[in-house]
């Protein structure tokens, strides 16, 4: 999976969670800092991502995720491990 393709797919998944936030979501957008997702919403987003990409995302790895791009990289890593 190409990183930019994953980012594009992820932006589509993140958008409904960021409803009401006047932010153009890019690779560099902060998931909690800019989109304001609380811990519950982050976990819902993780489930949506897991279903979409058919992967399991270890919750301990989320500590390193700040931006949409970070999450895309984690998705790629998880997909590689699941393959």
């Amino acid at each position, binding site marked *: 999976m190409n990183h930019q393709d994953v980012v594009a797919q992820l932006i589509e998944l993140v958008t409904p969670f960021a409803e009401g936030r006047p932010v153009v979501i890019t690779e560099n957008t902060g998931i909690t800092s800019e989109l304001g997702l*609380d*811990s*519950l919403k982050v*976990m819902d987003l*993780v*489930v949506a991502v897991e279903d979409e990409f*058919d*992967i*399991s*995302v*270890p*919750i*301990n*790895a989320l500590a390193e995720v700040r931006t949409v791009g970070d999450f895309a990289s984690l998705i790629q890593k998880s997909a590689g491990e*699941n393959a």
Partner: protein
Amino acid sequence: MKENPRLKAVRAVRQELAAVGIDPFGVQIDQIVSPTEGIIDGRPTILAGTNNYLGMTFDADCIASAREALESSGTGTTGSRMANGSYASHRELELDLARFYGKRDAIVFSTGYQANLGMISALAGPGDTVMIDADSHASIYDGCTLAGANTIRFRHNDADDLAKRMRRLGDGAADALIIVEGVYSMLGDRAPLREFVRVKKEFGATLLVDEAHSMGVLGEKGQGLAEVDGVLADVDFVVGTFSKSLGNTGGFCVGDSADMDVLRYASRPYVFTASLAPATIAATRTALRKLEKATDLRKRLQANAERLHAGLSALGFRLGAAPNAVVAVLVGDKLEALRFWDHLLKHGVYVNLMVPPATPGNESLLRCSVSAAHTPEQIDAICAAFGSWPGVKA
């Protein structure tokens, strides 16, 4: 001193509560009258927010055992078992627990929280995988953090979702540790344990079941959900607590593993914590002996749970699960739940207010825990207090 930014979120919640003028998380029970009654703010109050499922806290035999141990062995052990020595009674309680469950051995911890921390961090480490139910208790999440293992959540009570995630692990699935609870503390719903055992066997993995809210409550002998479902032999580790049906403080793990005696020394929450006081151990041993034979108490508990469940259902409330020792009323909105909780307290009924993120599905809950020691009249009084909430349409 400048404000610690890490406390920002908690500080905000405290300020929010202060603005409303209700503090559900700092309740002081000025006097404990019985397992089911206390004095709060000068009012006689029915306690329906404890986990005193069998009412064991005031059992005369348990109190006598504690008193005798207190007199003979002193107030505390003043150290950890590994560094400062075990008392004979610590080991005797472990053998009692192993016998009770029909398992090879047991390890006693100083709290139920530490039992999960201690077992999970001893069984798994960096590079290992732990599969946990999404609605797991904080002690399970924290145990995984302490372990530093890859922690994967599966959908609550969904064995198919677990199996799907196990398949993704490939050959690594056989080394995974699966963790579920018998009864979930927030809603009181049970795990489909036989299905989880099936998945565990399919992949050759290890299964740990936390029976904190089901020990003493479920099963002919009170061994919990694994006994009811007939799968105790297939559960590798049972974790439990002394602070619910046994009416005390402490935690434990039982298992058939040949490594039980090694695990305790690999467990930092075991090694670096002061051991339980002699009176606690003595009362717990007595409570365990009584729990095994407490079929009548379990029947009374179930009858009380059914009475409360039926009463609250008749009032039109949404409830979390089938009748069980935990009866959770789903309120939805946090502020309404807070005011409702306060209304109940002012009408002489103490229940637990549970709000997200501790609750599943973003729901706020008024969680009632039923005791065998509640009288039918107390159960009716709890229902009447719920019924007096202005939001009730009935």
